């Protein structure tokens, strides 16, 4: 189609390319700055306003945060809650999506309508908080996992995906004497690995990034997650749980903020390439049939 590009067109193209590259770089720049800052000395951070490469390479900020109990605890907590939460979300979503994919199951329409209604309307912050309180889940990690255990949106997408799989597969398995659970486990799940991987990553990112649930449900700060810890460190420069014994040692107050941001971001950046491979496809499945 680009048979004859005019001069004006070429100028536009060039300007557009430059502009888009600039946008790409600008998007990443804050993070490059923080990454560089996390490896710089405290003095350099305050002296040089902006840099993407530290003059003097230092691991001081990381050494400091990894020497504090509070940070280690927050990190371990976050990893565990994310792992357990993601597995629970996947199991609950799949086990509910599979029966709902059977068109002849009675009560299916009713349940589906209730699921869709829950997508539009929710009880809101306070009634949910009171429920968690009444269930005795305040200050429990279950409060970070259970209230969001099924995402109605993902449920419907996975249900549609199961429904689209050829029925012959199931029928032949049934002839061979497979049970419903056997069919789900041995035939459907292996076929839907890419879809489930996508949702697993989305779920994991969601739990890892969650700030609102720990804020609402965890008042005991020894149970805080990484996001709560990050908030505490960057907003109030209050180095909680300072486990340092040497009174002459001054912690790198700014450097710590840089280092904690990096640690809270890194897992997402590491998994991002895997996530990216799938999400366009996942979104498409969702928008076409959802």
């Amino acid at each position, binding site marked *: *189609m*680009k*048979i004859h590009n*005019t001069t*004006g067109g070429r100028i536009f*193209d060039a300007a*557009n*390319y430059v*502009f*888009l590259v600039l*946008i*790409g*770089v600008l*998007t*990443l720049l*804050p993070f490059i*700055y923080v990454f560089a800052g996390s490896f710089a000395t405290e003095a350099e951070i*305050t*002296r040089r306003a*902006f840099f993407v490469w530290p003059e003097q390479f230092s691991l001081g900020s990381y050494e400091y945060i990894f020497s504090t109990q509070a940070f280690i605890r927050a990190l371990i907590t976050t990893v565990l809650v994310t792992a357990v939460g993601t597995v629970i979300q996947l199991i*609950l*979503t799949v*086990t*509910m999506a599979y*029966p709902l994919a059977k068109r002849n*199951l*009675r009560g299916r329409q009713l*349940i589906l309508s209730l*699921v869709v209604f*829950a997508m*539009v309307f*929710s009880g*809101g*912050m*306070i*009634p*949910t*908080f*009171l*429920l968690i309180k009444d269930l005795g889940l305040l200050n429990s990690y279950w409060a970070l996992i*259970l209230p969001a255990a099924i995402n109605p949106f993902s*449920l419907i997408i996975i249900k549609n995906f199961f429904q689209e799989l050829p029925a012959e597969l199931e029928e032949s398995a049934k002839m061979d004497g497979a*049970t*419903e659970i056997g069919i*789900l486990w041995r035939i459907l799940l292996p076929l839907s690995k890419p879809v489930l991987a996508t949702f697993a990553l989305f779920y994991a990112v969601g739990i890892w*990034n969650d*700030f609102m649930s720990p804020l*609402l449900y965890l008042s005991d700060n020894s149970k805080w997650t990484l*996001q709560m810890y*990050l*908030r505490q460190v960057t*907003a109030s420069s209050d180095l909680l749980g300072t486990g340092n014994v040497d009174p002459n040692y001054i912690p790198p107050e*700014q450097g710590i903020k*840089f280092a904690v941001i990096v640690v*809270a*971001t890194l897992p997402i950046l590491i998994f991002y390439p895997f996530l*990216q491979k799938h999400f366009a496809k996942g*979104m*498409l499945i969702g*928008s076409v049939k959802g």
Partner: protein
Amino acid sequence: MTTSTVDVKTPEQAPPPAPAPGRRRRFAVHFAHYKWLYLLLLPGVVYFAVFRYAPMYGVSIAFKDYVPFLGVNASPWVGFQHFQDFFSNPDFGRLLGNTLILAFLNLGIAFPLTIVLALLLNEVRLSILKRTVQTLVYIPHFLSWTIVASLSFLLFALDFGPLFLFINSVLGTDIDFLSDPAWFRPLIVLQEIWKNTGWGTIIFLAALATVDQDQYEAAIIDGAGRFRRVWHITLPGIRSTIIVMLILAIGQMLNTGFEQIYLMTNALNRDVADVFDTYVYFVGITQGAYSYSTAVGLFKSLVGIVLIFGTNALAKRFNQSGLF
């Protein structure tokens, strides 16, 4: 599984003296046949009942004086008292104003920027460049608001924040962007643009890919330049997507995003920062006014539903495809 049980029921169906027990029996047979499926369904149904529908029932405390030790059921009814209190409270006007201003700023700036970015990306024929830029601009969407807020705190930090120094040296001022109420809204919109503009292009790029290519060739033959092609072919081609996304955005208008606003709120910018979501938190969770804040939250979600149905009806009246 137990196909034999299904067969047993057929002769019984023939004489229909009492339809109710027959139906019940048929359901029992159906249930026995599909017991594994129902068993699989159970945890999910329990989840929805407990964590989605119980809070909906809990909304009734907006019309009661909730007393914790009495519970939702036994607390006394007060009708619309909490709503009246809220509407006559001076906070109401301030909250509505703050929420609407932020919503319109996002709608008027971030939303069109998403479309512009999608159009610019769509003009790129160098696929490696296009993919690289897309990869980069999607990333912030996956970072938490805590990280976005922390980055803002560092970039605008007093005395050493790069953006603090840069903007102040350009303007010749000494503004503390993080606590100056005048800068609260620009910061919020800037964060929103940084975090979500790139991600928002996905849906528009998908729509742009479906625009009929023949039309461009015809337009080129007719002598249409690049901008005329975008104006007369590309934009009309994605009009329905734009409208659907706009309806969704308007429906979400009052959901200013609790985490973002909460994280950027401080003692100095409270007057412009308070929105419905954060107000519900501060009054409800930290001050314990459960019934009152539930009423505020309910008011907010009802307005949201009215907005989404309203825009949808409007879109249909202008003969555009609505959302439903």
